[in-house]
């Protein structure tokens, strides 16, 4: 198939602009990123610096790849990260617009690569259960009801790609943060730090990202289909974190 690409190019410290590249002879079995590999290889042979884009595992789990394709985070296929999108989803003659994640909290580094370190700051603020190595008791001493474990796993499936932020009209990070908060808040192991964790992570999120107004675009764009329910659960825990008397939190 023959395609025309409109790609965002931007050098550090300068304004960016769209460049148009022809991409003839693309196989429909290629992944989207393999198509860009081919374009880059041709650019290098022509002496043009290749398009910078990030990817690593190329199997939808590391969360590195991050392209807005025709205005959609990760492109047209639902529940699919950019790296697992294949060219058979496009048609011969298509014009495809490729942009970086759109969000002020994700500054552009170069071309399509952005800085997502704000997500790490949220994690660092409390996205853990304090369990120093060696301190754990036998794992089966703490039964976890299957439904709770499954629900925690549903949240923990988040790959931290930031598509939720990129898709949100407010650049809010509620879906990411709630997935991280609720993964731990739903488990018995996570109860001791539940209120502190929620408070610290939510407030760190607020310092970097926009506010949630319940559009739901985050869920639509999420390659792992993280549920909006986690945002509701996080909001509930956040309110509680402000009124709970933590001296009494040892009582059930």
């Amino acid at each position, binding site marked *: 198939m023959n395609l025309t690409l409109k790609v965002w190019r931007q050098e550090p410290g300068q304004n960016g602009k769209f460049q148009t590249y022809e991409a003839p002879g693309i196989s429909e079995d290629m992944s989207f990123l393999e198509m860009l590999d081919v374009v880059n290889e041709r650019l290098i042979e022509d002496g043009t610096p290749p398009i910078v884009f990030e990817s690593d*595992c190329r199997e939808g789990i590391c969360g590195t790849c991050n392209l807005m394709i025709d205005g959609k985070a990760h492109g047209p296929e639902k529940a699919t990260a950019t790296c697992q999108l294949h060219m058979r989803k496009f048609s011969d003659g298509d014009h495809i617009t490729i942009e970086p994640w759109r969000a002020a909290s994700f500054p552009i580094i170069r071309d399509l690569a952005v800085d997502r370190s704000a997500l790490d700051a949220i994690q660092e603020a409390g996205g853990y259960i304090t369990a120093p190595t060696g301190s754990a008791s036998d794992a089966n001493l703490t039964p976890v009801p*299957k439904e709770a474990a499954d629900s925690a796993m549903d949240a923990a499936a988040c790959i931290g790609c930031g598509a939720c932020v990129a898709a949100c009209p407010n650049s809010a990070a509620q879906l990411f943060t709630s997935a991280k908060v609720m993964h731990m808040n739903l488990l018995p192991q996570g109860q001791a730090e539940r209120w502190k964790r929620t408070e610290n992570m939510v407030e760190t999120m607020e310092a970097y990202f926009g506010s949630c107004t319940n559009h739901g675009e985050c869920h639509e764009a999420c390659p792992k289909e993280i549920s909006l329910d986690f945002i509701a659960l996080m909001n509930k825990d956040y309110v509680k974190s402000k009124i709970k008397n933590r001296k009494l939190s040892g009582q059930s």
Partner: protein
Amino acid sequence: MSGYSDVLDSKVPDGPMAEKWTNHKFNMKLVNPANKRKFEVIVVGTGLAGASAAATMGELGYKVKAFTFHDSPRRAHSIAAQGGINAAKNYQNDGDSVHRLFYDTVKGGDYRSREANVHRLAEVSVNIIDQAAAQGVPFAREYGGLLANRSFGGAQVSRTFYARGQTGQQLLLGAYSALMRQVNEGGVELFNRQEMLELVTKDGEACGIVCRDVITGEISSHTAHAVVLATGGYGNVYYLSTNAMMCNVTAAWRAHRKGAMFANPCYTQIHPTCIPSSDPFQSKLTLMSESLRNDGRIWVPDNFDEVRAAGDIPEAERDYYLERKYPAFGNLVPRDVASRNAKTVVDAGKGVGPLKNGVYLDFADAIARDGEDTVRAKYGNLFDMYERITGENPYKQPMRIYPATHYTMGGLWVDYHLMTTVPGCYAIGEANFSDHGANRLGASALMQGLADGYFVLPYTIGDQLAGKLGSDPVPADDPVFKDAIADVNDRTNKWLSVNGTKSVDHYHRELGKLVWDYIGMERNKNGLEKAISEITSLEEEFEKNVRVLGSADTLNQSLEKVGRVSDFFGLAKLKARDALVREESAGGHFREEHQTDEGEAQRDDENFSHVTAWDWNGEGEAQTEHREELVFNEVPLTQRSYK
């Protein structure tokens, strides 16, 4: 070459196997808590091994500096492991024990691993599960709330713990969360987007590293009392593998060039269940978890020129070759056996798919027996992934699979303390060679990475550090650091000035083809000799004709890649030599000249029961071969049989 080398002291403690580690922990020197903060430790890599080691040493009080070339530690490729993690918990009451896990791992490694290391691995496996569960890793549970297990990769007991098909992701998020807690508390300083380009040594001891900031291009020195490399394996030497795009051998290779011996580079695991490549621009291969072999049946058509769809081929005209040849284990034979048999039938011309480069993995019987819903509940994620990549629906037609490079058992030689032959430089996780011998069993990589990082290195590193009390790290303005920076800059300038005609990827792809063809699933003397000469000439062309555009002072992905591919060339030549001198077949190393009458791997225990470790002699000089004898006192040497 004969005899065993004096320079390789494994430092395996004396005493009965089951007591070695316990006694050794008591006998090692300790660093008292108030003194730990006086020691600086660099950890390079933040996958399972690196993140767990950095977090644990931070908790202990060491001043830890953790480096990753990713934007976040959680991107490391451990995240892609699907199937699970083994532990000798015996929660299923099916006769598992530390000894059985130890025995299975030594046997599965085709008797080419160090017994004492493997026993320690089996011992600490139980602590890993406790640790991970305490961190909130959402392992699969039974309805009563206790942990679920499955049998995996040919094990006769159910000892594998899992979190859906994303066990690596969940364990890495656990280690990452522990690491971020330490970052928050100041125990660990995290350096993102930093690629290590040199190990720095002074008087033969490791004293720091030189890194390049991949965003700004800034070159910086980092000093420490010890350097830990947790930088993964070298599978991308094949270009196509299940590894992530950026996985590379550079950190390990730079350490090798500074005196760390490289052990058993010929041992590579080719995973049997990957999606076959579909076009010449394929950038990587995707693994389908081998848990699929629990229910899928592997077959090829009997006819060489079969054109019918799989469903139209009658039962009588199908060859379920694994079930036929290995009735006891059937489709669950270990990875090396399954892979080689797939190659045999495809090479014979019975391959399936448009390029005739795969075999069928068929779920029709499982769906008929258990219903589509049950199969979907077990494997739904994997089936969806397969359909996204191939455009084919595996509920309606069999999957097509073919082996692909997945894991490298070889790596930097380490002693029982996980220290390389450069004092003060350690290697953990896939970067070292120690625990899997010639073949790794399924669900053992996560176990080893976390064993090294949580429960082994944090103890053993103290023994070396205790002797350095009162000494400061070598300062960053010492000439050794200046020299290392100059080396990095020289290489960078060299690559930017070649201005040839072909991209780095072009040469990486060509190198990968040679390595796959000659040092892949089957090797022979002629092929290996040819590999060495062809890799050498390709490398000469690469150095004269590669094109790296742009500059060094900014994000430049071609510049990052060219250094990695250059190091892969060095590794590829060593891999071929290692495969050449190992005149036997063992695990992932199959020499055509050494097979039984039935075509199985034939070991030569009399002459090859050793680790081959290669010592760097300088640019342009061949490495020197050293041997560490492997003695098997606990697990009797037998021919592996899965019939």
